[in-house]
């Protein structure tokens, strides 16, 4: 194992936070590497020294009169009632569910409002009735139409064909 990797783990080893498996690998490396061993010893010593300084430090304290005064001030305050939402564990879940619901409702409304694109196959099957043309006899289909709609621009082109499937200009 490389020293570079070990060096990353040394601060955690000093605080006994390294998982047992990693700690064993680090200690195995120490047997071969005096530099890393020394560094680890320094980290442990520094940590012990900092803790010793904190313990040796004479603790700050209030005078008895100050402490009494503080207690009087503190207990004179009003205990506040718990807010309805405070600490509710389902708060994030509910927010997520509401968001999903809003997205679903929005998508549904958008789809509902969007213009229905005529289907070419359906248009071919559906006979188009033209006012310019005499009413077809029952059972005989005189005119066929084909509608093509651009999805991008919405441009609609309708072609009409006679019974022989020859294009005729019914617009004129």
């Amino acid at each position: 194992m490389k020293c570079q990797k070990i060096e990353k783990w040394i601060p955690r080893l000093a605080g006994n936070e390294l998982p047992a498996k990693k700690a064993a690998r680090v200690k195995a490396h120490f047997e071969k590497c005096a530099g890393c061993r020394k560094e680890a010893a320094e980290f442990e010593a520094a940590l012990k020294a900092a803790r010793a300084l904190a313990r040796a430090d004479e603790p700050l304290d209030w005078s008895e009169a100050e402490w009494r005064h503080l207690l009087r001030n503190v207990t004179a305050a009003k205990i506040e009632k718990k807010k309805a939402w405070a600490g509710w564990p389902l708060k994030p879940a509910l927010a997520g569910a509401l968001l999903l619901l809003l997205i679903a409702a929005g998508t549904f409304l958008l789809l509902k409002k969007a213009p229905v694109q005529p289907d070419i196959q359906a248009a071919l099957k559906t006979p188009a009735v033209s006012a310019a043309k005499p009413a077809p006899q029952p059972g005989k289909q005189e005119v066929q139409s084909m509608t093509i709609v651009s999805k991008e621009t919405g441009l609609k082109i309708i072609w009409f064909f006679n019974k022989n499937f020859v294009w005729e200009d019914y617009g004129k």
Partner: protein
Amino acid sequence: MNEREKDLVKRVLNGDLAAFEPLITPYRRPLLGLAYRITRNAEDAKEVAQETFLRTFKYLKNFDVEKNFKSWIYQILVHAARNFEIKKTKQENLAMSEPLKEMAAAPGDRPEDRQEGGEFRTRLMDCLDVLTPREKEVFLLRDIEELSIQESAKILKCSAISVRVHLSAARKKIRTRIKNRYPELLEGAL
């Protein structure tokens, strides 16, 4: 949370204000000490600790008695200290002219930064000076107060990974500081 603390919390919530003192007395010195190490000033530390006890009392109804009271009160202190620092910085920025701001940038030069207490405190505070605010919080909670990584993460409202990352950075800086300025502290241990 131990049974005694649970009982005291219930008594306070039922209107027995005298029960608040035995509830917070065990935390009187540890909280003041931690506040001092964060703020670097005795008067500021007292203000932060007082604010902590005030919030503890005011929001005791929000406390879940099944959870750890120590973690909760430490969490309040850390947030009170952060708010205090923000407020103080704003006030200082408003009150100071530019040349004074430059002078204030050098830590240890301000009169309020002159640490009270003995040599041990001075050395500890000198070591803590090299840390960023988050590194300092993590180092104090985990390495000085000896709370677990999980407890520290909960108090600081961050992930355990974040605590580990800041802790490693803090330990590196502390080790370098002690090695450079107080090598005699390492000699005995090496």
